[in-house]
């Protein structure tokens, strides 16, 4: 399906499950509330005409303290039908929590661990939510917009700009 067809198909069959749909630069974006994101994503995977069998990418974005929100963005792709879709979930910046999609796509396991590591988003029902890239005793979440590096890590100065 082309993006336009996909958008009208989604509007027809999944209208009550997402909040907003838009086309941007040739790709289709939907906005989902965090309450039913898991249900919608698993429906998108299992629907015989959509069949989004691969999760290309899962990432998060911090909109900063002013906006007070964070986003989790899923890039879905269907190998047999060759169509793709981006799903966006907006979360509050205080205690961002969302259901894990690890049980739908196994690849989400590490992507979600990375989002947890970098943004501090906690994923419900994740089997193994540990830090993945940073050391386990690192303080703070590095990709948040208001992140301040800790001064020292194990007596090693972190801020390399100061001699």
């Amino acid at each position: 399906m082309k993006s336009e067809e996909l958008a009208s198909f989604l509007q027809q069959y999944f209208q009550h499950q997402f909040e907003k749909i838009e086309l941007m630069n040739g790709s289709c974006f939907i906005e989902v509330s965090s309450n039913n994101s898991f249900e919608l994503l698993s429906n998108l995977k299992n629907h015989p005409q959509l069949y989004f069998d691969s999760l290309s990418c899962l990432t998060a974005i911090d909109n900063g303290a002013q906006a007070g929100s964070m986003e989790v963005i899923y890039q879905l792709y269907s190998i047999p039908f060759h169509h793709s879709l981006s799903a966006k979930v907006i979360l509050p910046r205080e205690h961002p929590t969302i259901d894990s999609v690890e049980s739908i796509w196994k690849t989400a396991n590490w992507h979600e661990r990375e989002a947890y590591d970098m943004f501090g988003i906690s994923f419900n029902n994740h089997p193994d939510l540990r830090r993945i890239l940073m050391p386990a005793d690192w303080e703070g979440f590095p990709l948040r917009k208001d992140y301040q590096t800790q001064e020292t890590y194990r007596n090693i100065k972190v801020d390399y700009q100061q001699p």
Partner: protein
Amino acid sequence: MKPTYHYTENNLIDSEPNKFKEENLRSEEMILNIGPQHPSTHGVLRLEVISDGEVIKEVVPHIGYLHRCFEKHAENLPFNQIIPFVDRIDYLASMNNEHAYALGVEKMLGIIEQIPRRVEYIRVLVAELNRIASHFIAIGTYGMDIGAFTPFFWVMRDREHILRLLEWASGSRLLYNYIWIGGLFYDIPVGFEEQCQQYIKYLKPKLQELEDILINNKIFIERTANVGVLPLHTAINYGITGPMLRASGLRFDLRKVDAYSIYPELDFHVPIGEGKMGKLGDCWDRTWVRMQEIYQSVSIIEQCVARLTSDLKRDVTFDPQALVPKKIRPAAQDFYCRAENPKGELGFFFRTDGRNDVPVRCKVRGPSFVNLSVLPALAKGVLLADLIAIVGSLDLVMGEVDR
């Protein structure tokens, strides 16, 4: 006061603790740490192995030892200055990274249709040269992992010619900064096409030799066939892409599927695993698919050179930097673009605000990162020696895993 660092056992345990606790193990099981400094882990990868004698119960990869904060850096740099950082994601295939990145930014800017065809052909030419170099490393080091020492020297010798060609074009051996947004750093040097032709002529018998001594070697087959079998549905569920997915039997190559750049004009086919020596999707199939891809890349290079010496010949008016924008400021949007790297699908997710020439977010979806995540599922119940064979067949580049 001078900072002091006390080396204690507890320090190490706090920074990267094991997932499994010793007291929870059964009586015959033990925890074995492989890496982070171990030749067969291809970089700084640490594997926490729970083993019962020689049989592996669980593998937990610990990564992040080479984390260089690419995404944080990218949030503070203009688009054109990110390219040298993009080189360092997968440092064995920098040209492919640059190609994917330039493609994404050009699509966001909407100038992708205007890129001169000669520029696109040069891009594909250097990217395919780099793909061969990357596959050489994959095959050569894999042979070394499981005991074949000679092929490694052979592929390093042949790869050296590619590095010299690319150095001639760009000025550096590994990290090129050659493909720019909207064009190239410079036109290819005079005589480059002829040198490519000569190299291809030199390479073809060497490839046959490599296939004879390594891929079809009896010892190699016995070490790799029927080992680490990755079924197709598992591969798709784990998001595996690239030669690993194709070895599991799916003809899925983004060069064909997405038909980006000038790949639709080129004549090549996508090799897939056939399970010739064992089951479909085993370690041998993965290596064999990489070998077949080298042949396809050779054919692509021949076609590119043919075009570059006939209708897309160099002339004095050609300026590869003519379309390079002075100010790279895409409209406000979210955009995900992907391209076929030697390891798999390299994706970039951008968010731009339209007011700034710095991306708000630039996320990299590295193929090695995703391909490594299947290891715990793949290595359950195998022997320790087979674990080394499996890790080698994933073709990991830790720079891309940790970014």
